[in-house]
Protein backbone atom coordinates (compact mmCIF):
# COMPACT_ATOMS: atom_id res chain seq x y z
CA UNK A 1 0.00 0.00 0.00
CA UNK A 2 1.62 3.29 -1.10
CA UNK A 3 1.75 6.23 1.27
CA UNK A 4 -1.51 8.13 1.44
CA UNK A 5 -1.52 11.44 -0.38
CA UNK A 6 -3.96 13.54 -2.37
CA UNK A 7 -2.78 11.71 -5.45
CA UNK A 8 -3.43 8.22 -4.09
CA UNK A 9 -6.63 8.92 -2.20
CA UNK A 10 -8.28 11.33 -4.62
CA UNK A 11 -6.69 11.90 -8.04
CA UNK A 12 -6.05 8.27 -9.01
CA UNK A 13 -9.43 6.99 -7.79
CA UNK A 14 -11.28 9.84 -9.52
CA UNK A 15 -9.51 9.22 -12.82
CA UNK A 16 -10.16 5.51 -12.55
CA UNK A 17 -13.86 5.82 -11.72
CA UNK A 18 -14.25 8.51 -14.38
CA UNK A 19 -12.69 6.30 -17.03
CA UNK A 20 -14.91 3.43 -15.96
CA UNK A 21 -18.07 5.47 -16.63
CA UNK A 22 -16.93 6.27 -20.15
CA UNK A 23 -15.83 2.70 -20.94
CA UNK A 24 -19.10 1.26 -19.65
CA UNK A 25 -21.10 3.73 -21.70
CA UNK A 26 -19.26 2.92 -24.91
CA UNK A 27 -19.93 -0.78 -24.30
CA UNK A 28 -23.68 -0.27 -23.86
CA UNK A 29 -24.97 0.94 -27.19
CA UNK A 30 -28.58 1.20 -26.07
CA UNK A 31 -27.68 3.98 -23.68
CA UNK A 32 -26.39 6.10 -26.54
CA UNK A 33 -29.71 5.72 -28.31
CA UNK A 34 -31.69 6.55 -25.20
CA UNK A 35 -29.78 9.67 -24.33
CA UNK A 36 -29.20 11.12 -27.80
CA UNK A 37 -32.01 9.88 -30.04
CA UNK A 38 -34.85 10.65 -27.67
CA UNK A 39 -34.21 14.39 -27.41
CA UNK A 40 -33.62 14.65 -31.17
CA UNK A 41 -36.93 12.94 -31.93
CA UNK A 42 -38.57 15.18 -29.36
CA UNK A 43 -37.02 18.24 -30.88
CA UNK A 44 -37.99 17.36 -34.48
CA UNK A 45 -41.54 16.30 -33.66
CA UNK A 46 -42.49 19.05 -31.25
CA UNK A 47 -40.45 21.63 -33.08
CA UNK A 48 -42.14 20.85 -36.37
CA UNK A 49 -45.57 20.50 -34.81
CA UNK A 50 -45.46 23.82 -32.99
CA UNK A 51 -43.68 25.64 -35.76
CA UNK A 52 -46.72 27.52 -36.98
CA UNK A 53 -48.47 28.07 -33.66
CA UNK A 54 -45.43 29.50 -31.96
CA UNK A 55 -44.68 33.17 -31.99
CA UNK A 56 -42.25 34.70 -29.54
CA UNK A 57 -43.89 37.50 -27.52
CA UNK A 58 -42.29 40.79 -28.23
CA UNK A 59 -40.74 39.44 -31.41
CA UNK A 60 -42.83 41.75 -33.59
CA UNK A 61 -41.57 44.75 -31.69
CA UNK A 62 -37.94 44.02 -32.37
CA UNK A 63 -38.62 42.81 -35.86
CA UNK A 64 -36.93 39.54 -35.01
CA UNK A 65 -38.47 36.29 -36.03
CA UNK A 66 -37.51 32.92 -34.81
CA UNK A 67 -38.40 29.47 -35.91
CA UNK A 68 -39.55 27.15 -33.13
CA UNK A 69 -36.96 24.55 -34.09
CA UNK A 70 -34.38 27.22 -33.59
CA UNK A 71 -35.94 28.40 -30.34
CA UNK A 72 -35.97 24.89 -28.92
CA UNK A 73 -32.38 24.16 -29.94
CA UNK A 74 -30.51 25.28 -26.79
CA UNK A 75 -33.20 23.70 -24.62
CA UNK A 76 -32.77 20.41 -26.43
CA UNK A 77 -29.08 20.50 -25.58
CA UNK A 78 -30.09 20.99 -21.95
CA UNK A 79 -32.43 18.02 -22.32
CA UNK A 80 -29.63 15.83 -23.67
CA UNK A 81 -27.49 16.81 -20.71
CA UNK A 82 -30.36 16.12 -18.32
CA UNK A 83 -31.18 12.71 -19.84
CA UNK A 84 -27.55 11.61 -19.81
CA UNK A 85 -27.09 12.79 -16.26
CA UNK A 86 -30.15 10.76 -15.27
CA UNK A 87 -29.01 7.59 -17.01
CA UNK A 88 -25.46 7.92 -15.76
CA UNK A 89 -26.44 8.54 -12.16
CA UNK A 90 -29.00 5.73 -12.11
CA UNK A 91 -25.92 3.54 -12.48
CA UNK A 92 -24.92 4.31 -8.90
CA UNK A 93 -28.01 2.35 -7.85
CA UNK A 94 -26.93 -0.55 -10.09
CA UNK A 95 -23.37 -0.30 -8.77
CA UNK A 96 -24.75 -0.70 -5.28
CA UNK A 97 -27.09 -3.55 -6.18
CA UNK A 98 -24.55 -5.45 -8.25
CA UNK A 99 -21.91 -5.12 -5.56
CA UNK A 100 -19.28 -3.00 -7.31
CA UNK A 101 -19.89 -0.07 -4.97
CA UNK A 102 -19.14 -2.03 -1.77
CA UNK A 103 -15.52 -2.44 -2.88
CA UNK A 104 -15.23 1.27 -3.64
CA UNK A 105 -16.70 2.24 -0.28
CA UNK A 106 -14.33 -0.09 1.57
CA UNK A 107 -11.28 1.29 -0.28
CA UNK A 108 -9.02 3.94 1.29
CA UNK A 109 -10.32 6.74 -0.94
CA UNK A 110 -11.73 10.11 0.03
CA UNK A 111 -15.50 10.00 -0.07
CA UNK A 112 -15.50 13.02 -2.34
CA UNK A 113 -13.57 10.94 -4.91
CA UNK A 114 -16.57 8.65 -5.23
CA UNK A 115 -18.75 11.67 -6.06
CA UNK A 116 -16.26 13.31 -8.41
CA UNK A 117 -15.54 10.13 -10.36
CA UNK A 118 -19.21 9.51 -11.01
CA UNK A 119 -20.12 13.13 -11.68
CA UNK A 120 -17.20 13.80 -14.02
CA UNK A 121 -17.92 10.55 -15.88
CA UNK A 122 -21.56 11.44 -16.26
CA UNK A 123 -20.77 15.02 -17.26
CA UNK A 124 -18.28 13.86 -19.90
CA UNK A 125 -20.90 11.69 -21.56
CA UNK A 126 -23.45 14.48 -21.41
CA UNK A 127 -21.16 17.11 -22.90
CA UNK A 128 -19.94 14.88 -25.74
CA UNK A 129 -23.51 14.05 -26.72
CA UNK A 130 -24.69 17.62 -26.53
CA UNK A 131 -21.77 18.62 -28.76
CA UNK A 132 -22.76 15.98 -31.30
CA UNK A 133 -26.20 17.55 -31.34
CA UNK A 134 -24.63 20.97 -31.69
CA UNK A 135 -23.25 19.86 -35.05
CA UNK A 136 -26.85 20.01 -36.32
CA UNK A 137 -26.98 23.72 -35.53
CA UNK A 138 -26.27 25.00 -39.07
CA UNK A 139 -29.33 23.10 -40.32
CA UNK A 140 -31.63 25.24 -38.22
CA UNK A 141 -30.10 28.61 -38.89
CA UNK A 142 -28.50 28.73 -35.47
CA UNK A 143 -25.32 30.69 -36.11
CA UNK A 144 -22.22 28.90 -34.87
CA UNK A 145 -18.72 30.35 -34.69
CA UNK A 146 -15.53 29.21 -33.02
CA UNK A 147 -16.23 31.66 -30.21
CA UNK A 148 -19.79 30.54 -29.64
CA UNK A 149 -18.78 26.89 -29.86
CA UNK A 150 -16.21 27.44 -27.10
CA UNK A 151 -18.74 29.34 -25.02
CA UNK A 152 -21.34 26.57 -25.44
CA UNK A 153 -18.74 23.97 -24.44
CA UNK A 154 -17.92 25.89 -21.29
CA UNK A 155 -21.56 26.31 -20.31
CA UNK A 156 -22.32 22.65 -21.08
CA UNK A 157 -19.56 21.52 -18.72
CA UNK A 158 -21.00 23.64 -15.90
CA UNK A 159 -24.61 22.58 -16.49
CA UNK A 160 -23.62 18.92 -16.92
CA UNK A 161 -21.72 18.86 -13.63
CA UNK A 162 -24.63 20.48 -11.81
CA UNK A 163 -27.26 18.09 -13.19
CA UNK A 164 -25.06 15.01 -12.72
CA UNK A 165 -24.43 15.93 -9.11
CA UNK A 166 -28.17 16.52 -8.65
CA UNK A 167 -28.80 13.04 -10.08
CA UNK A 168 -26.14 11.59 -7.78
CA UNK A 169 -27.71 13.25 -4.77
CA UNK A 170 -31.09 11.73 -5.61
CA UNK A 171 -29.77 8.28 -6.58
CA UNK A 172 -27.29 7.72 -3.71
CA UNK A 173 -29.80 6.86 -0.98
CA UNK A 174 -32.05 4.81 -3.28
CA UNK A 175 -32.00 1.06 -3.54
CA UNK A 176 -34.13 0.66 -6.64
CA UNK A 177 -34.27 2.33 -10.03
CA UNK A 178 -38.09 2.48 -9.86
CA UNK A 179 -37.86 5.15 -7.20
CA UNK A 180 -35.56 7.14 -9.42
CA UNK A 181 -38.03 7.00 -12.32
CA UNK A 182 -40.73 8.45 -10.10
CA UNK A 183 -38.49 11.37 -9.14
CA UNK A 184 -37.48 11.80 -12.75
CA UNK A 185 -41.07 12.20 -13.93
CA UNK A 186 -42.13 14.29 -10.99
CA UNK A 187 -39.15 16.58 -10.56
CA UNK A 188 -36.57 16.37 -13.31
CA UNK A 189 -38.85 16.53 -16.37
CA UNK A 190 -40.93 19.45 -15.05
CA UNK A 191 -37.64 21.10 -14.16
CA UNK A 192 -36.71 20.89 -17.82
CA UNK A 193 -40.11 21.97 -19.12
CA UNK A 194 -40.12 25.01 -16.88
CA UNK A 195 -36.59 26.09 -17.74
CA UNK A 196 -37.35 28.20 -20.79
CA UNK A 197 -36.27 25.28 -22.96
CA UNK A 198 -39.81 24.69 -24.10
CA UNK A 199 -41.42 28.10 -23.89
CA UNK A 200 -40.17 31.45 -22.63
CA UNK A 201 -41.13 32.82 -19.25
CA UNK A 202 -42.42 35.96 -20.92
CA UNK A 203 -45.42 34.09 -22.30
CA UNK A 204 -46.17 32.14 -19.12
CA UNK A 205 -48.72 33.02 -16.48
CA UNK A 206 -47.51 34.74 -13.36
CA UNK A 207 -47.18 31.76 -11.05
CA UNK A 208 -45.43 29.75 -13.73
CA UNK A 209 -43.02 32.59 -14.40
CA UNK A 210 -42.23 32.55 -10.69
CA UNK A 211 -41.40 28.86 -10.68
CA UNK A 212 -39.26 29.40 -13.74
CA UNK A 213 -37.41 32.21 -12.00
CA UNK A 214 -36.39 29.97 -9.08
CA UNK A 215 -35.63 26.93 -11.25
CA UNK A 216 -31.83 26.65 -11.47
CA UNK A 217 -32.06 25.04 -14.89
CA UNK A 218 -33.68 28.23 -16.24
CA UNK A 219 -30.29 29.85 -15.80
CA UNK A 220 -28.50 26.95 -17.43
CA UNK A 221 -30.73 27.14 -20.49
CA UNK A 222 -30.42 30.94 -20.57
CA UNK A 223 -26.65 30.65 -20.47
CA UNK A 224 -26.67 28.08 -23.25
CA UNK A 225 -28.99 30.23 -25.37
CA UNK A 226 -26.78 33.26 -24.99
CA UNK A 227 -23.61 31.24 -25.61
CA UNK A 228 -25.02 29.99 -28.91
CA UNK A 229 -25.72 33.59 -30.04
CA UNK A 230 -22.52 34.94 -28.53
CA UNK A 231 -21.14 36.33 -31.79
CA UNK A 232 -24.31 36.64 -33.83
CA UNK A 233 -26.08 38.70 -31.19
CA UNK A 234 -29.84 38.68 -30.69
CA UNK A 235 -31.54 35.32 -30.93
CA UNK A 236 -32.35 35.45 -27.29
CA UNK A 237 -35.65 37.00 -28.15
CA UNK A 238 -37.61 37.23 -24.97
CA UNK A 239 -36.25 38.74 -21.80
CA UNK A 240 -33.68 36.48 -20.20
CA UNK A 241 -31.48 36.82 -17.18
CA UNK A 242 -28.17 38.37 -18.24
CA UNK A 243 -25.39 36.03 -19.39
CA UNK A 244 -23.36 36.89 -16.33
CA UNK A 245 -26.25 36.22 -13.98
CA UNK A 246 -27.06 32.94 -15.76
CA UNK A 247 -23.45 31.80 -15.47
CA UNK A 248 -23.16 32.78 -11.83
CA UNK A 249 -26.31 30.87 -10.85
CA UNK A 250 -25.25 27.82 -12.90
CA UNK A 251 -21.80 27.68 -11.34
CA UNK A 252 -23.27 28.19 -7.88
CA UNK A 253 -25.78 25.40 -8.47
CA UNK A 254 -23.05 23.00 -9.63
CA UNK A 255 -20.82 23.77 -6.65
CA UNK A 256 -23.73 23.37 -4.24
CA UNK A 257 -24.83 20.04 -5.71
CA UNK A 258 -21.30 18.57 -5.66
CA UNK A 259 -20.79 19.74 -2.08
CA UNK A 260 -24.12 18.27 -0.95
CA UNK A 261 -23.33 14.97 -2.68
CA UNK A 262 -19.96 14.77 -0.97
CA UNK A 263 -21.62 15.48 2.36
CA UNK A 264 -24.27 12.79 1.87
CA UNK A 265 -21.66 10.20 0.89
CA UNK A 266 -19.44 11.02 3.86
CA UNK A 267 -22.24 10.81 6.38
CA UNK A 268 -22.82 7.15 5.49
CA UNK A 269 -19.25 6.14 6.20
Amino acid sequence: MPKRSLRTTFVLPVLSLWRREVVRFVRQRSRLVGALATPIVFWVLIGSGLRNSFRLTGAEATGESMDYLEYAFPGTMAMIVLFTAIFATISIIEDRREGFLQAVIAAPVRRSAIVCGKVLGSATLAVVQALLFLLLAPLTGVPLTVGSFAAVLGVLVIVAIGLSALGFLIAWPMDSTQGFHAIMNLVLLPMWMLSGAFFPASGASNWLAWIMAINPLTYGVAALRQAVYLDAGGGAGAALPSFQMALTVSVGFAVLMVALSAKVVSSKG
Partner: protein
Amino acid sequence: MPDDPAVQTTALTHRYGERLALDHVDLKAKRGSILALLGPNGGGKTTLFKILTTLLVPSEGTASVAGFDVRRDRDAVRGSVGIVFQKPSLDDKLSVIENMQNQGNLYGMSGKGLRSRSMELLERFGLGDRAGDRVATLSGGLQRRVELAKGLLHRPDVLILDEPSTGLDPGARAGLMDYLQELRDRDGVTSLLTTHLMDEADRCDQVAILDEGRLIATGTPASLKGTIGGDVLTVRCDDPVLLSQKASDRFDVSTKVLDGAVRIERDRGHEFVPDLIEAFPGEINSVTVGRPTLDDVFLHLTGHRLWDNGTDDDS
Protein backbone atom coordinates in the same frame (compact mmCIF):
# COMPACT_ATOMS: atom_id res chain seq x y z
CA MET B 1 3.52 -2.80 16.44
CA PRO B 2 4.11 -6.27 15.08
CA ASP B 3 3.01 -7.90 18.32
CA ASP B 4 -0.47 -6.42 18.23
CA PRO B 5 -3.09 -8.95 17.33
CA ALA B 6 -4.03 -8.69 13.64
CA VAL B 7 -7.66 -8.41 14.61
CA GLN B 8 -8.98 -7.59 18.05
CA THR B 9 -12.42 -6.74 19.34
CA THR B 10 -13.41 -5.79 22.86
CA ALA B 11 -17.00 -5.99 24.04
CA LEU B 12 -18.01 -5.35 20.45
CA THR B 13 -21.74 -4.85 20.27
CA HIS B 14 -24.04 -3.92 17.42
CA ARG B 15 -27.76 -3.31 17.24
CA TYR B 16 -29.98 -2.94 14.20
CA GLY B 17 -32.74 -0.95 15.86
CA GLU B 18 -33.97 -3.24 18.60
CA ARG B 19 -32.29 -6.37 17.36
CA LEU B 20 -28.99 -7.29 18.96
CA ALA B 21 -26.76 -8.62 16.18
CA LEU B 22 -23.50 -8.73 18.12
CA ASP B 23 -23.39 -9.05 21.88
CA HIS B 24 -20.11 -8.12 23.62
CA VAL B 25 -17.80 -10.06 21.36
CA ASP B 26 -14.16 -10.37 22.49
CA LEU B 27 -12.12 -11.77 19.66
CA LYS B 28 -8.41 -11.95 18.97
CA ALA B 29 -6.58 -13.19 15.89
CA LYS B 30 -2.80 -13.57 16.13
CA ARG B 31 -0.66 -12.18 13.35
CA GLY B 32 0.12 -14.80 10.77
CA SER B 33 -2.78 -17.09 11.62
CA ILE B 34 -5.97 -18.18 9.92
CA LEU B 35 -9.13 -17.68 11.92
CA ALA B 36 -12.54 -19.04 11.00
CA LEU B 37 -15.69 -17.37 12.25
CA LEU B 38 -18.05 -20.29 12.29
CA GLY B 39 -21.74 -19.93 12.84
CA PRO B 40 -25.17 -20.26 11.32
CA ASN B 41 -26.58 -17.63 8.99
CA GLY B 42 -27.95 -14.81 11.07
CA GLY B 43 -25.47 -15.58 13.84
CA GLY B 44 -23.66 -12.25 13.50
CA LYS B 45 -20.81 -13.21 11.19
CA THR B 46 -21.66 -10.76 8.46
CA THR B 47 -22.20 -7.94 10.94
CA LEU B 48 -18.73 -8.57 12.33
CA PHE B 49 -17.35 -8.70 8.78
CA LYS B 50 -18.89 -5.33 7.98
CA ILE B 51 -17.50 -3.73 11.13
CA LEU B 52 -13.98 -5.05 10.54
CA THR B 53 -14.05 -3.81 6.93
CA THR B 54 -15.31 -0.34 8.03
CA LEU B 55 -18.62 -0.72 6.17
CA LEU B 56 -20.51 -0.48 9.45
CA VAL B 57 -19.80 1.55 12.56
CA PRO B 58 -20.42 -0.55 15.69
CA SER B 59 -22.89 0.61 18.35
CA GLU B 60 -20.55 -0.13 21.26
CA GLY B 61 -17.17 -1.62 22.07
CA THR B 62 -13.98 -1.42 20.07
CA ALA B 63 -12.45 -3.24 17.15
CA SER B 64 -9.02 -2.93 15.60
CA VAL B 65 -7.49 -4.39 12.47
CA ALA B 66 -3.72 -4.47 11.89
CA GLY B 67 -3.40 -2.31 15.00
CA PHE B 68 -5.74 0.42 13.74
CA ASP B 69 -9.05 1.31 15.35
CA VAL B 70 -11.99 0.90 12.97
CA ARG B 71 -13.60 4.11 14.23
CA ARG B 72 -10.66 6.48 14.63
CA ASP B 73 -8.30 5.18 11.95
CA ARG B 74 -10.73 4.12 9.32
CA ASP B 75 -8.51 4.95 6.36
CA ALA B 76 -5.53 3.12 7.85
CA VAL B 77 -7.73 0.05 8.36
CA ARG B 78 -8.96 0.33 4.79
CA GLY B 79 -5.41 0.51 3.50
CA SER B 80 -4.15 -2.54 5.39
CA VAL B 81 -7.01 -4.93 4.88
CA GLY B 82 -7.75 -6.97 1.78
CA ILE B 83 -11.41 -7.83 1.38
CA VAL B 84 -13.11 -10.67 -0.42
CA PHE B 85 -16.83 -10.04 -0.47
CA GLN B 86 -19.41 -12.77 -0.55
CA LYS B 87 -21.47 -10.80 -3.03
CA PRO B 88 -19.58 -10.19 -6.29
CA SER B 89 -17.82 -6.83 -6.41
CA LEU B 90 -16.54 -6.99 -9.97
CA ASP B 91 -17.75 -4.84 -12.84
CA ASP B 92 -18.82 -7.41 -15.40
CA LYS B 93 -18.77 -4.89 -18.24
CA LEU B 94 -15.03 -4.51 -17.75
CA SER B 95 -12.32 -7.05 -18.50
CA VAL B 96 -10.50 -8.91 -15.77
CA ILE B 97 -7.40 -6.74 -16.06
CA GLU B 98 -9.50 -3.54 -16.15
CA ASN B 99 -11.11 -4.60 -12.88
CA MET B 100 -7.69 -5.22 -11.38
CA GLN B 101 -6.44 -1.85 -12.54
CA ASN B 102 -9.44 -0.04 -11.16
CA GLN B 103 -8.95 -1.81 -7.85
CA GLY B 104 -5.26 -0.87 -7.84
CA ASN B 105 -6.06 2.78 -8.52
CA LEU B 106 -8.51 2.79 -5.61
CA TYR B 107 -5.63 1.62 -3.42
CA GLY B 108 -3.22 4.24 -4.75
CA MET B 109 -1.34 1.93 -7.12
CA SER B 110 -0.63 2.78 -10.73
CA GLY B 111 1.63 2.26 -13.73
CA LYS B 112 4.00 -0.62 -14.34
CA GLY B 113 4.03 -1.78 -10.73
CA LEU B 114 0.27 -2.21 -10.77
CA ARG B 115 0.28 -4.01 -14.10
CA SER B 116 2.96 -6.50 -13.15
CA ARG B 117 1.41 -7.15 -9.73
CA SER B 118 -1.99 -7.73 -11.40
CA MET B 119 -0.55 -10.18 -13.91
CA GLU B 120 1.44 -11.97 -11.21
CA LEU B 121 -1.75 -12.61 -9.22
CA LEU B 122 -3.80 -13.57 -12.27
CA GLU B 123 -1.11 -16.07 -13.26
CA ARG B 124 -1.08 -17.40 -9.71
CA PHE B 125 -4.82 -18.09 -9.93
CA GLY B 126 -4.64 -19.58 -13.40
CA LEU B 127 -6.29 -16.58 -15.03
CA GLY B 128 -3.31 -15.31 -17.03
CA ASP B 129 -4.89 -16.10 -20.38
CA ARG B 130 -8.25 -14.60 -19.40
CA ALA B 131 -6.91 -11.16 -18.43
CA GLY B 132 -8.40 -9.44 -21.47
CA ASP B 133 -11.80 -11.15 -21.24
CA ARG B 134 -14.90 -9.42 -19.96
CA VAL B 135 -15.80 -10.60 -16.48
CA ALA B 136 -19.31 -11.46 -17.70
CA THR B 137 -17.86 -14.27 -19.85
CA LEU B 138 -16.17 -15.99 -16.88
CA SER B 139 -17.75 -18.86 -14.96
CA GLY B 140 -18.80 -18.26 -11.36
CA GLY B 141 -15.78 -20.12 -10.02
CA LEU B 142 -13.36 -18.09 -12.12
CA GLN B 143 -15.05 -14.85 -11.03
CA ARG B 144 -14.48 -15.87 -7.41
CA ARG B 145 -10.80 -16.26 -8.19
CA VAL B 146 -10.69 -12.76 -9.66
CA GLU B 147 -12.32 -11.50 -6.46
CA LEU B 148 -9.57 -13.13 -4.45
CA ALA B 149 -6.81 -11.78 -6.69
CA LYS B 150 -8.38 -8.34 -6.38
CA GLY B 151 -8.42 -8.51 -2.60
CA LEU B 152 -4.71 -9.41 -2.51
CA LEU B 153 -3.61 -6.79 -5.03
CA HIS B 154 -2.26 -4.20 -2.59
CA ARG B 155 -0.42 -6.78 -0.46
CA PRO B 156 -2.63 -6.43 2.62
CA ASP B 157 -1.41 -7.56 6.05
CA VAL B 158 -4.83 -8.88 6.91
CA LEU B 159 -7.23 -10.61 4.59
CA ILE B 160 -10.92 -10.68 5.51
CA LEU B 161 -13.11 -13.04 3.53
CA ASP B 162 -16.88 -13.33 3.77
CA GLU B 163 -18.00 -16.87 2.98
CA PRO B 164 -15.18 -17.23 0.45
CA SER B 165 -16.18 -20.71 -0.67
CA THR B 166 -19.61 -19.63 -1.90
CA GLY B 167 -19.85 -20.80 -5.48
CA LEU B 168 -16.63 -22.83 -5.38
CA ASP B 169 -16.55 -26.57 -6.02
CA PRO B 170 -14.83 -28.74 -3.36
CA GLY B 171 -11.56 -28.83 -5.31
CA ALA B 172 -11.38 -25.06 -5.63
CA ARG B 173 -12.34 -24.74 -1.97
CA ALA B 174 -9.39 -26.88 -0.91
CA GLY B 175 -7.18 -24.84 -3.25
CA LEU B 176 -8.29 -21.65 -1.53
CA MET B 177 -7.32 -22.99 1.89
CA ASP B 178 -3.94 -24.11 0.50
CA TYR B 179 -3.38 -20.61 -0.79
CA LEU B 180 -4.33 -18.93 2.50
CA GLN B 181 -1.84 -21.23 4.26
CA GLU B 182 0.83 -20.38 1.70
CA LEU B 183 0.21 -16.66 2.25
CA ARG B 184 0.45 -17.16 5.98
CA ASP B 185 3.70 -19.13 5.79
CA ARG B 186 5.42 -17.06 3.13
CA ASP B 187 4.26 -13.49 3.85
CA GLY B 188 2.82 -13.74 7.34
CA VAL B 189 -0.62 -12.69 6.11
CA THR B 190 -3.42 -13.11 8.63
CA SER B 191 -6.70 -14.40 7.25
CA LEU B 192 -10.08 -14.13 8.88
CA LEU B 193 -12.90 -15.88 7.12
CA THR B 194 -16.54 -16.35 7.89
CA THR B 195 -18.01 -19.73 7.13
CA HIS B 196 -20.88 -22.01 7.94
CA LEU B 197 -18.97 -25.06 6.69
CA MET B 198 -17.29 -27.05 9.42
CA ASP B 199 -14.82 -28.79 7.12
CA GLU B 200 -13.55 -25.39 6.09
CA ALA B 201 -13.26 -24.25 9.71
CA ASP B 202 -11.44 -27.50 10.42
CA ARG B 203 -8.52 -26.41 8.23
CA CYS B 204 -8.02 -23.09 10.05
CA ASP B 205 -5.62 -22.43 12.92
CA GLN B 206 -8.29 -20.99 15.16
CA VAL B 207 -12.05 -21.26 15.18
CA ALA B 208 -14.39 -18.79 16.82
CA ILE B 209 -17.97 -19.96 17.09
CA LEU B 210 -20.59 -17.28 16.85
CA ASP B 211 -24.25 -17.92 17.58
CA GLU B 212 -27.05 -15.43 18.06
CA GLY B 213 -24.53 -12.62 18.22
CA ARG B 214 -22.46 -14.14 21.00
CA LEU B 215 -19.01 -15.64 20.79
CA ILE B 216 -19.58 -19.00 22.47
CA ALA B 217 -16.19 -20.66 22.03
CA THR B 218 -12.73 -20.09 20.58
CA GLY B 219 -9.79 -22.40 20.15
CA THR B 220 -8.01 -24.65 17.73
CA PRO B 221 -10.25 -27.16 15.95
CA ALA B 222 -8.62 -29.96 17.96
CA SER B 223 -9.06 -28.28 21.33
CA LEU B 224 -12.69 -27.47 20.58
CA LYS B 225 -13.39 -31.06 19.63
CA GLY B 226 -11.57 -32.11 22.77
CA THR B 227 -14.20 -30.38 24.89
CA ILE B 228 -16.57 -33.17 23.96
CA GLY B 229 -15.88 -36.27 25.99
CA GLY B 230 -14.39 -38.75 23.55
CA ASP B 231 -16.83 -40.06 20.95
CA VAL B 232 -20.26 -39.34 19.62
CA LEU B 233 -22.70 -42.25 19.33
CA THR B 234 -25.71 -42.03 17.07
CA VAL B 235 -28.33 -44.64 17.93
CA ARG B 236 -31.14 -45.34 15.45
CA CYS B 237 -34.25 -46.94 16.90
CA ASP B 238 -38.04 -46.97 16.57
CA ASP B 239 -38.78 -44.79 19.58
CA PRO B 240 -35.89 -42.41 20.14
CA VAL B 241 -37.63 -40.34 22.79
CA LEU B 242 -38.29 -43.35 24.99
CA LEU B 243 -34.83 -44.83 24.43
CA SER B 244 -33.17 -41.53 25.18
CA GLN B 245 -34.99 -41.39 28.51
CA LYS B 246 -34.19 -44.97 29.43
CA ALA B 247 -30.51 -44.70 28.44
CA SER B 248 -29.93 -41.60 30.52
CA ASP B 249 -31.67 -43.24 33.53
CA ARG B 250 -29.70 -46.42 33.27
CA PHE B 251 -26.23 -45.10 32.39
CA ASP B 252 -24.67 -41.91 33.56
CA VAL B 253 -24.67 -40.25 30.14
CA SER B 254 -26.22 -37.18 28.60
CA THR B 255 -28.53 -38.06 25.73
CA LYS B 256 -30.36 -36.06 23.18
CA VAL B 257 -32.87 -36.75 20.43
CA LEU B 258 -31.86 -35.30 17.11
CA ASP B 259 -33.11 -35.98 13.59
CA GLY B 260 -34.98 -39.11 14.72
CA ALA B 261 -31.96 -40.64 16.45
CA VAL B 262 -30.51 -40.65 19.97
CA ARG B 263 -27.19 -38.90 20.31
CA ILE B 264 -24.83 -39.76 23.15
CA GLU B 265 -21.45 -38.22 23.96
CA ARG B 266 -19.23 -40.70 25.69
CA ASP B 267 -15.57 -41.43 26.25
CA ARG B 268 -14.37 -44.76 24.77
CA GLY B 269 -17.57 -45.05 22.77
CA HIS B 270 -16.74 -48.39 21.19
CA GLU B 271 -16.70 -50.08 24.62
CA PHE B 272 -20.08 -48.62 25.43
CA VAL B 273 -21.80 -50.07 22.35
CA PRO B 274 -22.18 -53.69 23.65
CA ASP B 275 -23.51 -52.41 27.01
CA LEU B 276 -26.07 -50.36 25.22
CA ILE B 277 -27.27 -53.12 22.93
CA GLU B 278 -27.49 -55.65 25.76
CA ALA B 279 -29.42 -53.22 27.90
CA PHE B 280 -32.14 -52.67 25.29
CA PRO B 281 -32.37 -55.87 23.29
CA GLY B 282 -34.35 -55.61 20.08
CA GLU B 283 -34.96 -51.89 20.44
CA ILE B 284 -31.89 -50.64 18.59
CA ASN B 285 -31.61 -50.74 14.81
CA SER B 286 -28.08 -49.40 14.47
CA VAL B 287 -25.32 -47.61 16.37
CA THR B 288 -22.69 -45.40 14.78
CA VAL B 289 -19.57 -44.34 16.65
CA GLY B 290 -17.80 -41.24 15.41
CA ARG B 291 -15.10 -38.79 16.42
CA PRO B 292 -16.66 -35.46 17.29
CA THR B 293 -16.79 -32.87 14.52
CA LEU B 294 -17.07 -29.11 14.85
CA ASP B 295 -20.74 -29.60 14.12
CA ASP B 296 -20.95 -31.74 17.28
CA VAL B 297 -19.11 -29.04 19.19
CA PHE B 298 -21.60 -26.48 17.95
CA LEU B 299 -24.51 -28.71 18.88
CA HIS B 300 -23.01 -29.41 22.29
CA LEU B 301 -22.65 -25.68 23.00
CA THR B 302 -25.89 -24.39 21.57
CA GLY B 303 -28.30 -27.29 21.58
CA HIS B 304 -29.05 -26.77 17.89
CA ARG B 305 -27.37 -27.62 14.65
CA LEU B 306 -25.33 -25.31 12.47
CA TRP B 307 -27.60 -25.95 9.54
CA ASP B 308 -30.94 -25.44 11.28
CA ASN B 309 -32.37 -22.61 9.25
CA GLY B 310 -30.61 -23.28 5.99
CA THR B 311 -31.53 -19.88 4.64
CA ASP B 312 -29.01 -17.61 3.02
CA ASP B 313 -29.98 -14.23 4.34
CA ASP B 314 -27.50 -13.19 6.95
CA SER B 315 -27.32 -9.77 8.46
